[in-house]
């Protein structure tokens, strides 16, 4: 064990692989030192496991109705009670993890690279490219996120896929701004000039030199934004424009529970807890990542 550790922390790595693994290991260790980050990571791990093993974890079907067991309070049989159609809320929350995870992953996959690329190109070239791209970005930024998403969903039609597209379209401008700001800080730096002098193309400079330096702040920002994405998705679901019944989406579940919120509080509260917990998990992890993803941190012990 200690030999593996020595190998990873070797000051003079013998290969590219060892150097990269070593820096990843240092980063992981910085992450692990922060208890909140560990909690955040654990919450997300639980979310992923719940999503992956939903059929085995959930005691009931998320869609199966049992009208004889409507609106039962939490008990040993139904841990989180049942909703107005007698569906087990715990099972629905577990299955809902899949939908949440899918929304989060797809939005991140679509909007983060898009924003990153637009921001990096804009910041690197400057001039008219910058003005044009940032103009578009500003137009998107100037509109409230949820309203814009609403407009898109209204145009595309309600449904979970359209909600994802709408959220992705509305969330890239923030990333483009960050990537541009980050790029501006080093576009005139000497290590970029050096690559240009070596004959490197703009494409190479952007993909190999600019983007890697933007990604860490991007990862942090995306992680911190995940909470907002989940809330926007839940908001769309709540307004009936996101996931459609009977899909067990958490926001839609809260929306359904609103009718009974005074007498049967658990119907709306349980998915609400799930949203808070997962949002919190992403926030904790994002904070920890921000500390760990600084390349200069690796050397300090």
């Amino acid at each position, binding site marked *: 064990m200690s030999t593996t550790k020595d190998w990873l922390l070797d000051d003079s790595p013998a290969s*590219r692989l060892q*150097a990269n693994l070593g820096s990843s290991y240092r980063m992981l260790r910085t992450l692990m030192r922060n208890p909140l980050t560990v909690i955040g990571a654990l919450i997300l791990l639980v979310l992923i496991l719940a999503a992956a093993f939903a059929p085995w974890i959930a005691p009931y079907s998320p869609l199966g109705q049992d009208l004889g067991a409507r609106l039962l309070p939490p008990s040993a049989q139904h841990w989180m009670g049942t909703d107005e159609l007698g569906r087990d809320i715990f099972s629905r929350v577990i299955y809902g993890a899949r939908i949440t995870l899918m929304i989060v992953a797809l939005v991140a996959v679509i909007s983060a690279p898009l924003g990153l690329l637009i921001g990096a190109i804009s910041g690197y070239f400057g001039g008219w490219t910058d003005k044009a791209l940032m103009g578009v970005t500003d137009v998107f930024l100037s509109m409230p996120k949820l309203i814009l998403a609403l407009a898109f969903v209204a145009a595309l039609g309600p449904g979970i896929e359209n909600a994802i597209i709408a959220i992705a379209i509305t969330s890239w401008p923030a990333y483009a701004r960050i990537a541009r700001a980050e790029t501006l800080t080093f576009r005139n730096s000497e290590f970029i000039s050096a690559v240009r002098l070596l004959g490197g193309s703009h494409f190479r400079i952007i993909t190999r030199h600019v983007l890697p330096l933007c990604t860490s702040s991007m990862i942090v920002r995306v992680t911190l934004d995940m909470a907002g994405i989940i809330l926007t998705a839940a908001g769309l679901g709540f307004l009936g424009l996101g996931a459609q019944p009977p899909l067990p989406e958490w926001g839609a579940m809260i929306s359904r529970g609103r009718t009974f919120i005074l007498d049967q509080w658990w119907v709306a509260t349980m998915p609400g807890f799930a949203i808070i917990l997962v949002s919190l998990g992403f926030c904790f992890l994002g904070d920890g990542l921000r500390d760990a993803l600084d*390349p200069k941190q690796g050397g300090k012990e």
Partner: protein
Amino acid sequence: MSAIVLKNLDISYGATKVVWDVNLEVAEGESFALVGESGSGKSTVLKAIAGLAPDWTGEISVLGQKRGHGVDRAFATRCQMVFQDPYGSLHPRKTVDTVLSEPLQVHGLGNRGARVKDMLAAVGLDQRFRFRFPHQLSGGQRQRVAIARALMLDPRVMLLDEPTSALDVSVQAEILNLLKRLRREQGLTYLMVTHNLPIVSFMCDRMAVMNKGRIVEIAPATALHDGRFNDPYTQSLYAASGGNPDRKVTT
């Protein structure tokens, strides 16, 4: 053939003209210094030759070939530049190996591992530094990496922009000795910007003194020993740097 010829070179940044009418000829194998105070335009001349200050008029030729205004690939194999700040000139997320392999990748050259190893040896870096990140290196080691990167493409002409001013005095000496040795071994031509006159007398054959964007005097480096400068500005610069401490006052 001259390594670098500058004819009637005017350089501007946007609307502001910063260098006027520079005429200069550096012979192949020569080590030439551009000296002057901060803001005198000496680094700008270097940037224009490298292609980083594209806004110029006049003529620049390197090794007999006239150069265009932008950065170009063919030029990269003839002329390279070492920057002032070794902390800013290396990508913070790339290992020494990646930094040194990059020029080879850009120009499609093979046998990268062996070339990187040879170059590390040539600039006096141990092989164990090969996979380190810049933050694991000292300033002097970083500057060695920067010099190695510039030399990867076998250029004939090196532009040095105050290559030691960001380093400690003891490390400065190491880097200067390294540069001197590399020039001797590989027959390089140096055009070096500095404001340190002792470095000029140690490294260079000739020097051009710049003031307010113009060259006021071109003199052999030996003038630093006897103080034979014609221009009044050069004389005051020489006097301000303390003159030659070894020179006996004979008058």
